[in-house]
């Protein structure tokens, strides 16, 4: 047991903390955007688990999902109008005609796990996210973003360990 007590944090520990932080951030924000018009943007469909959670906690909200390809579980794939396929670096910049309004919430779980690749991604992603976020809207992200005019909100212990961030754009 002594060995167990001093065991280092594993990737599994970090991952569970990350998913838990993501869930709590999204649920927290879902209760706060009632007064903000605009859709939700999910950057990266992946397995579709987070999309499934978003549509459960925000049943009345339009959700657009961006990814290069659809590799999700068949139970959680958006309809064709709300699945935007292509390199997000390109599609996010040109999604205006399709998405129309700025978003009340943007969720981004595009982290690569490599700190340099994440820095590069944050560099092009930050301005695009700024452009697509409504005043007073929220951004929950697995990559730290340097966003002018956004406030970084307090993080839970799970968010610290799991590397998750929450920002709010000035209203």
């Amino acid at each position, binding site marked *: 047991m002594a060995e*167990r007590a001093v065991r280092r944090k594993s990737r599994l520990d970090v991952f569970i903390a990350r998913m838990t932080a993501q869930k709590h951030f999204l649920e927290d924000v879902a209760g706060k955007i009632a007064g903000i018009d605009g859709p939700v943007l999910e950057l990266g469909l992946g397995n579709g*688990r987070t999309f499934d959670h978003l549509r459960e906690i925000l049943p009345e909200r339009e959700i657009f999902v961006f990814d290069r390809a659809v590799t999700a579980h068949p*139970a959680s794939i958006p309809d064709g109008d709300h699945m935007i396929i292509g390199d997000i670096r390109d599609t996010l910049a040109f999604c205006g005609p399709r998405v129309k309004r700025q978003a009340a919430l943007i969720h981004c779980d595009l982290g690569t796990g490599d700190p340099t690749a994440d820095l590069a991604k944050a560099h092009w992603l930050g301005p695009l996210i700024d452009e697509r976020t409504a005043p007073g809207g929220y951004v929950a992200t697995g990559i730290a973003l340097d966003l002018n005019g956004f406030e970084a909100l307090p993080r839970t212990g799970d968010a610290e360990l799991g590397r998750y961030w929450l920002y709010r754009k000035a209203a």
Partner: protein
Amino acid sequence: MSRLDSFIRRMSAQRLLLNEAADLIGELDGPVVDLGIGNGRTFDHLAALFPDRAVFAFDNFIHSAIDVLPPPERMVMGDIRDTLPHALPRLGARAALVHNDLGSADAVGNAATAAWLAPAIEAVARPDAVIVTSFPLPFSSSVSLPLPAEVRPGRYHLIRLTI
């Protein structure tokens, strides 16, 4: 419950059962086997839990983070259906603990995998090995062990072989 909720509970159950298994195999010699390294999260947890045991990973390709890869002699590459039954010379001793998360979200796919996987595990595990698995496996002789209170029955499985 969303698929995210269900996933968090499944990964938490996996971690609880692996931690429990670490106590259960305290007195049993033998390496640890992780079936499906995937992105390496569970392998890294096993490496953290068992600093004094050899932990082997099996998969047919590698896409895990480069800082959690096992040394090459402990990374068995190939279709697990082919490699596992022939892995005993590589393992050096019968495994004390086998973790299996080869499953898909499809119960039919899991049943098909289970049919070849159970005998393949028996070929390389101790007759009293502990098995942690994400779906039921039809071993020739085994008992289900009590689950920690936080794990709902059926979410993840803790088994001891009784061969």
